[in-house]
Every structure is written in structure tokens, then in C-alpha cells.
């Protein structure tokens, strides 16, 4: 009975978080893709939208996959603990991916000298 409550809260928070982070990265990352494509706005927007879609698919998929082996929730304390454990791990994975992407942009931009100079 408590598991259903945990799933509801988890899915609501996760979906909103994934949507919000995706929108922020979509908006702020556009200028970097624009630089990599040397100002070609049309292919930049295409690539940006496709990347956003792929991001949504992968992350919602993974978040829903993790519902399968959730521990049996018996009390409020266990509810908070398991919820924050799952959410924390998901957000940590998002963080690692995000820093990996920043690093990727940095290394790609080393070929094009017009990023920092």
C-alpha cells in the first residue's frame, strides 16, 4: 500500500526534474552547438531538438526501469529513506552525465579556436 505512494511521488518528481533539466540544457547548450557548426542555425536547431528527444527517452526509460526492484515499504521512515535513495542515485547519474557533456564540449572546442580567444 505504501509502495504505491512511493511510486507516485517518485514518478512525479523524476518526470518533472528530467523535463526541467532537459529544457535548461536545451536552451543553454544551443550556443555551443551553434559554434561547433560555425553559425549554421538550421542544422543546429535540428541536432538540438533530436538530442533533447533522445535525452528524454533515455532518462524516463531508466527512471521507470528502476521501479522494478524497489524494497518493500512498511513505515514513513522507510518511505523517505528509499525515496531519497532512489532519487539521489538518479540525480547523481544525471550530474555525472552533465559533467561528461561539458567535458565533451570542451574537448571538441579545442579543434575550433574561436571559443575562448
Amino acid at each position, binding site marked *: 500500500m505504501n509502495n504505491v505512494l512511493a511510486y507516485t511521488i517518485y514518478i512525479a518528481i523524476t518526470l518533472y526534474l528530467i523535463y526541467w*533539466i532537459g529544457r*535548461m*540544457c536545451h536552451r*543553454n*547548450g544551443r*550556443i*555551443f552547438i551553434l*559554434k561547433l557548426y560555425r553559425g549554421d542555425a538550421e542544422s543546429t536547431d535540428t541536432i538540438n531538438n533530436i538530442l533533447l528527444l533522445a535525452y528524454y527517452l533515455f532518462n524516463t526509460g531508466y527512471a521507470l526501469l528502476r521501479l522494478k526492484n524497489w524494497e518493500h515499504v512498511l*513505515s*514513513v*521512515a522507510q518511505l*523517505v*529513506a528509499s525515496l*531519497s*535513495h532512489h*532519487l*539521489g*542515485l*538518479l*540525480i*547523481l*547519474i*544525471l*550530474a555525472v552525465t*552533465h*559533467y561528461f557533456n*561539458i567535458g565533451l564540449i570542451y574537448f571538441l572546442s579545442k579543434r575550433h*579556436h574561436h*571559443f*575562448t*580567444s
Partner: protein
Amino acid sequence: MNTEHIAYIVIAYFCYLPIALGLTWYVAHSLFRNSIVFMKDIFNGREEIALATNTLFRIGFYLLNIGFALYILKIREPLSSTQTTIEALSFKVGGFSIYLGIMLFLNLYLFFRGKRVAKQKRLGYEMNKRYNNPGPQQ
């Protein structure tokens, strides 16, 4: 585990969550309000790309630290009194605070490194230009 112990754990969780999230918000707020100066310097005064990079780093900082704060929330030892609750809570908050300090210095190191690299690159570019195209007066 009876109901009293569970109540202590729930109180500890609901004290820990606002403290950890508020601390993360405060550190990120003061770090990224000041880092915009570095960003403008690194990107040679170009406002748009400096703001975008600053926002991306701020998202990364929030994700990493809130994720870690939620991940370490679970208290494993049984809490039987107010004293043990305060001890467990302060151990968690103190550990998280030290972790936040390390993250803060890591980000500062990144900003200073970026600033140094950009300065070297700019200098090399200037030297190269002067060497290859000497002005008419030289």
C-alpha cells in the same frame, strides 16, 4: 523497531532535508553570483556564451550536490533518544558540509584554470599575429 524509534528517525530526516538543501542552495547562489566575472574574462567579454556556461555549471553543481545529499540520507543506526538523534544528525550535516567545501574549491580551481588557459591562448595569439604581420612602422 517500535513506533517511538521510527518517530525519531522521521524527525531526523525532516530536519536533515531542509538543512542540506538550503546549504546547497546558499553555496551555489554565492559561488555562481561571483563566478560570472571569471566567465566574462574567460570568454573575452562575450556575454551570451559566458552566461550559458555559468548556467550549465550551476545546473551541474546543483545536480551533483543535491543528488549526493539525498543519497546519503539514510540513517542506519537505531535512534532511541533525543541525544542519539542530535548526534546522528550533526554527523550527517557536518560530513555534508565538508563535502560541499571540497566541491566549492574544486569549482574555484576549474575557474582559475580556465582563466589562466584563456590568458595564455590570448597572449600566444597576439604574439603570433605580431610576428606574422609586422606593422608598416616596424
